[in-house]
């Protein structure tokens, strides 16, 4: 068991339970994620991928089942700050400069100034923003803001990084660049990553495994092993294997959709096929 970072066992989530607007957001989720693994959650809008991420983060409680993070309950893991989190909006505090933003989780942990300074130096180096330490967030480009958000998420050296469409608001060029940056950061730190996305190429490029989900009710329909190897680079995006895995994920998404709909020949809504 010690090599698993996250175990989700029989988890389900019902919103507005017991009312007329009751929604099964997730049912029967079983998922184990190993330490150091990069796992993407992909699926159309409403498939519960963000909900699953928030169950793992203990930002919402499961209606049934158990979530274990780092060998303890998700609630305890949150209190111990065993994970860092990054969202689609960088969510930087506009009244704090880059360094102060990165130091926020350390401040909340009660680190003293010297410790914080040393760690934020390290993080600024990691995301290649050392010369922007004193800039305010609104003075940075979207990609740079997202890098600050990642630095903030990793500042306390959490073993687990949870990301909810972190590159969703970036343009395609910046996005691909950020994907490579993220891979190299994870290679350096050995962090386990759970990454929510609705882009198939992004999921395939980044992940060891792609978890394919389908909506109403939200559930896992397939898990695609990517096996592109640890040394991915920009050229990986052009090899045949990359396209094969993209096809695998696309077919898994379609299968998930056809299981629900008779005419399911089209790609589910909210999926980018780029």
């Amino acid at each position, binding site marked *: 068991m010690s090599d698993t970072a996250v175990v989700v066992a029989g988890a389900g989530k019902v919103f507005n339970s017991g009312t007329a607007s009751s929604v099964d957001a997730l049912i029967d989720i079983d998922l184990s994620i190993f330490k150091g693994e990069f796992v993407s959650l992909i699926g159309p809008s409403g498939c519960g991928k963000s909900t699953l991420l928030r169950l793992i983060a203990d930002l919402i409680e499961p209606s049934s089942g158990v979530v274990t993070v780092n060998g303890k309950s998700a609630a305890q893991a949150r209190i111990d700050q065993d994970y860092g989190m990054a969202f689609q909006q960088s969510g930087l*505090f506009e*009244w704090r400069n880059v360094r102060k933003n990165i130091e926020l*989780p350390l401040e909340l942990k009660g680190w003293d100034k010297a410790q914080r300074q040393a760690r934020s130096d390290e993080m600024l180096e990691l995301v290649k923003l050392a010369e922007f330490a004193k800039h*305010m967030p609104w003075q940075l480009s979207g990609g740079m803001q997202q890098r600050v958000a990642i630095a903030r998420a990793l500042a306390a050296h959490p073993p687990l990084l949870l990301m909810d469409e972190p590159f969703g608001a970036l343009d395609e060029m910046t996005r691909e660049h950020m994907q490579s940056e993220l891979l190299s950061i994870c290679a350096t730190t050995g962090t386990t990553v759970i990454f929510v996305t609705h882009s198939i190429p992004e999921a395939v490029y980044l992940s060891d495994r792609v978890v394919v989900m389908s909506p109403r009710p939200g559930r896992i329909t397939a898990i695609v092993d990517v096996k592109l190897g640890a040394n991915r680079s920009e050229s990986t995006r052009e090899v045949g294997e990359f396209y094969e895995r993209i096809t695998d994920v696309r077919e898994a998404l379609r299968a998930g959709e056809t299981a629900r709909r008779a005419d399911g020949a089209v790609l589910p809504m909210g999926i980018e096929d780029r």
Partner: protein
Amino acid sequence: MTARRSSRSLNWRRIIMFPLSFVLLGVAWEGYKTVGPAKGGKVFGWQLLPKTGDREMPHILDMVRRLAHPEVRGGKDSIAVVVLRAMTYSLWLSILAVVLGVAIGVSLAVVMSRFRIVERALTPYLIVSQTIPIVALAPLVVGILAYVSRELGAQKWIAAVALGSFLAFFPMAMGALRGLKAAEPASVELMDSYAAGWWTTLFKLRFPASVSYLAPALRLAGASSVVGVVVSEISIGLQPGVGRLILSYSQEATTDPPKLFTAVFGAGALGLMMAGLVLAVEKMMMRNRPLESAA
């Protein structure tokens, strides 16, 4: 370069605009005084045009001259000094009132944002509190204070401060309440992910995120506190304040018309001074913020 130059010329224009508007106002005043009917005039049968006699519209030069003379014949200090002294007194009361009003308003907003039920329970009272004319409240407060002063030795000026803050707390409470709710949901989620407590989230996130709502609220609170203090000075006859000067000089309006205007100038300058103070505080609050929200 061009942007910089244009912003500099804009500043320059801003600096010249205020004295220029002053001069224009003076010209308009004197111009109408020369042209307009001395006994006032009717427009479509309505008595609309103001009288232009020296009693109703004294010459500006007379008002300025009046500033140099003592309050009463043979008095020691010139009226300028008397008015200035009164302004200082009223300004201090207004500052006390606005500080108290901000403290009460923000505290109320914190409690209301924490407990929905308090917000619902309190909102009608807050609205009612702002519809009661302060002139009606002033004697009431003075009455209560008179009782308290017998027991505790409280001073009359406390009533003016209380009424000033009574007007100032409302815009502050409303602005702060909106501001405290304005934090991005993603930011709140982020604080949750750090298992940050309610107080920590309040100080690290909600207060800083509310600043762009607090700044305009503070402007309103500053103006309200001055009105509250001056009006209650008039209504309770608080001795050294600008309100008291307006009251006593208006009784001499027929014999010494420019005198009343000196006190009115004082009240106007008092408002400007408070606005300047508030602006300085605002600048401090908004430093390092993107320009859009500062505007």
